[in-house]
């Protein structure tokens, strides 16, 4: 399933489009940026409540397919500015991380 299809199914609010055609390979949930950098896998959806500028750099280094900000979190202005140079799309949703991850599992089966 592509990032764009996933976003539609989950009714996510799009902040930055990124590459919507990327294939979603799985899901990683985490807020400690150094953990995410080491543990998220290429193509994963990354679910987090962090919204500062380093999120863009971490998403790029970990090569995630998209970022979902949970619990209604909105990105900082600095993060939004940095998204232009990142492939990963950025979404926000009122759902909590558990609910998002559960729904992703139901959609992609991993």
């Amino acid at each position, binding site marked *: 399933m592509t990032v764009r299809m996933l976003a539609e199914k989950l009714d996510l609010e799009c902040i930055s489009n990124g590459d919507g055609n990327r294939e979603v390979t799985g899901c990683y949930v985490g807020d*400690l940026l*150094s*953990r995410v*950098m*080491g543990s998220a896998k290429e193509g994963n959806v990354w679910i987090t409540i*962090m919204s500062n500028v*380093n999120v*863009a*750099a971490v998403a790029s*280094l970990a090569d995630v397919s998209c970022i979902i900000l949970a619990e209604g979190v909105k990105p900082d202005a600095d993060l939004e500015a940095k998204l232009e140079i990142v492939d990963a799309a950025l979404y926000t949703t009122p759902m909590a991380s558990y609910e998002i991850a559960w729904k992703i599992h139901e959609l992609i089966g991993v």
Partner: protein
Amino acid sequence: MFCYCDFHIHSCLSPCGQPEMTPSNIARMAALQGYNIIAVSDHNTTGNCRAVIRAAAEAGIVAIPAMELTTSEEVHMLCLLPSADAADEFGKYVYERLPDIRNEPGFFGEQILMDFDDNILGYEERLLINATDISLQDVPALLAVYGGVAIPAHIDRSSFSILSNLGYIDRSLGFRAVEISRGCDPRILLENYPELDNMPYYKNSDAHDLYSMLTAKNGLELVEITAEEIIDIFKRGDVPNRLK
């Protein structure tokens, strides 16, 4: 004597520190702004401390060694150290506990090592802003080994602070003073964290560029200008301001 002090300044060795934040620019700007004492506290490194100490001396002020340590909980701790030797040793200890991930200068910025006269000595290739595997609860004892002190940094910030990441300050850790950001209104902080009433605090610039190095306002009453005395003041929580 009363001394104007800013203990939290980033040099160009921090990836987020602007290239203009060279040892000699920092020292001269601090002197112009009226500071007597400064500390450059780069992320997880003390690599530019010796250069800053000498540059400060050339500018007629004093610099003490420091570091902004990132704990495994991604809490930033401002660490003040008693000597350049202690800073070298502490820097080595921390470096070994920093993940071996390379810096991407395009995203994070260059990490430039310099001498006191702003000559480039090299570029640090390991990403310095990552979390170390040093847990917050081990930090006070660790700093004691090096004769320094650790101060929870910018506790009002919504990321990388003890309050944002852990929710409260565990009193058993023994922190007697905290740092708040330059834009922080202590009254608002207290409204959200009433348990911090009467907590001694110090406001530093946390400057990442020369423009943010503000005119000297905050300081300490010192008998002698030594790193040891300053460290002792923060250990005792004997700074002028209390959260009220």
